[in-house]
């Protein structure tokens, strides 16, 4: 219910610099209001995982591992596989992260990433059933935040997507004896590629991909996920401030623009690597 650390106090001189620079249409790191930091990625970084991807947005670093196991389905959906998304704000990633079970920030992060993947139906869970009611594939997507320099949501969502896109599913043989894992693997079938864009509101300005400093002074943030067919599949407002309906519309416009850029510059390149 409450964070366990002392409130972070930002130096007034820094806060003023951020606001002054914004009033001139720029950000402290020289970016335009609608500009992302450099996005870099690597896939297949953890051989023991069935899928993995590390994404860097500026200095924010998130590693997602996908593990695929066999388990029981949920009783009300006996013929579908299960997608489980978890996020860890690993203590080494920030002086503000404490060891312990996921706090409200880690839980929100995991659920927002999950929402986009689930609403867009990235994976057809119906195809992950081995023995209905008994054995299905469990897709564990574990988001591991390794360095927090702002905008964990976009980096996490992107690394989760790339990890799934490059994941290999073990082939199981189903017989009367049960379920047996073979030596073979096949790629996980991906039906949709939602991309997530987060914007922060600072005073009257709206900036894309907030840095850590910007997150500390922002009034509120809005996260919008758009799928491969241009449909909105997840929205999350965060922070203690507000948006007017006009500001929401403006954010949606910007989101659609940035989603296209990220899709062409990053996601489409995954196959080529």
């Amino acid at each position, binding site marked *: 219910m409450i*964070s366990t650390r*002392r409130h972070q106090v930002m130096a007034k001189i820094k806060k003023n610099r951020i606001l002054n620079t914004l009033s001139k249409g720029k950000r402290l790191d020289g970016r335009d209001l609608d500009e992302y930091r450099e996005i870099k990625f690597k896939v297949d970084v953890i051989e023991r995982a069935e899928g993995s991807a590390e994404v860097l947005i500026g200095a924010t670093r998130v590693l997602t591992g996908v593990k695929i196991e066999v388990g029981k389905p949920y009783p009300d959906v006996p013929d579908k596989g299960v997608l489980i998304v978890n996020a860890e704000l690993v203590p080494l990633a920030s002086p503000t992260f404490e060891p312990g079970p996921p706090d409200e920030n880690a*839980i929100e992060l995991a659920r927002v990433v999950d929402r986009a993947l689930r*609403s867009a139906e990235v994976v057809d869970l119906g195809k992950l059933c081995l023995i209905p009611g008994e054995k299905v594939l469990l897709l564990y997507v574990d988001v591991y935040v390794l360095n927090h320099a702002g905008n964990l949501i976009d980096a996490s969502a992107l690394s989760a997507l790339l990890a799934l896109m490059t994941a290999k599913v073990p082939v199981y043989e189903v017989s009367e004896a049960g379920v047996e894992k073979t030596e073979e693997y096949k790629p996980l079938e991906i039906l949709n590629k939602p991309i997530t864009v987060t914007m922060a509101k600072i005073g009257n300005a709206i900036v894309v991909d907030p840095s850590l400093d910007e997150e500390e002074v922002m009034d509120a943030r809005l996260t919008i996920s758009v799928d491969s067919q241009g*449909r909105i599949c997840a*929205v999350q*407002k965060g922070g203690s401030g507000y948006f007017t*309906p006009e500001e*929401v519309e403006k954010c949606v416009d910007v989101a659609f623009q940035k989603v296209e850029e990220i899709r062409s510059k990053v996601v489409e390149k995954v196959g080529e690597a």
Partner: protein
Amino acid sequence: MPLVVEGKRVDGRGLEELRPIKIESGILENADGSAYVEQGRTKILAAVYGPKELHPRHLADPQKALLRCRYHMAPFSTEERRSPAPSRRDIELSKVIRNALEPAIFLEEYPRSTIDLFIEVLQSDGGTRCTGIVAASVALADAGIPMRDLVSACAAGKVDGFIVLDLCYVEDQEGEADMPVAYMPKLGQITLLQMDGLMTREEFDRALNLAIKGCEQIYEVQREALKKRYEAIERLVGGEGT
């Protein structure tokens, strides 16, 4: 199973019709402020304690009051009994509800203190985060917490391809999209906005407008609930004697 047949939904409502809503304020003796809301079959109780000293003191914010919010569902509130332990959903909802109410409260008036808000879902039929915010706002005003405006909340969504207002549980589960919104009508400010499901840009815009309209209607019910206690006393007492 179709959810919309000839403009009527599973519970007989029209596409843009709210469920019947009833709000009572000041019903708990100990809390500084409280409210009870019934919206369709959803029943929610909210209570506020504070502002008061926050212990341990080093967790306090020297510049403003902390709003601590606990959203929780009673074990008997859902079709199948649920564990009383807070779920991940309870924790996320506690956070987004807190973020929905913070912009309304003059937190800077009471630095270092805490305002504790408890939202208990006694029976759930969908829309609990919105109904929870509706109850919480009334409880906060009932407690005399200084606010810029009341916060109202309502969800819109997409069911069988139609954009509808105030989804019940079945519509949320079986429908194509759900969009909860919290809004301060006098100030025109959106303080909660989430969406899960699939919507085109155009559907998103229509749903957002519809949800805001729902918020404006519910806002009037919140105001009536706060006024009516005092107006009832006035009527009861004002007629007698000198």
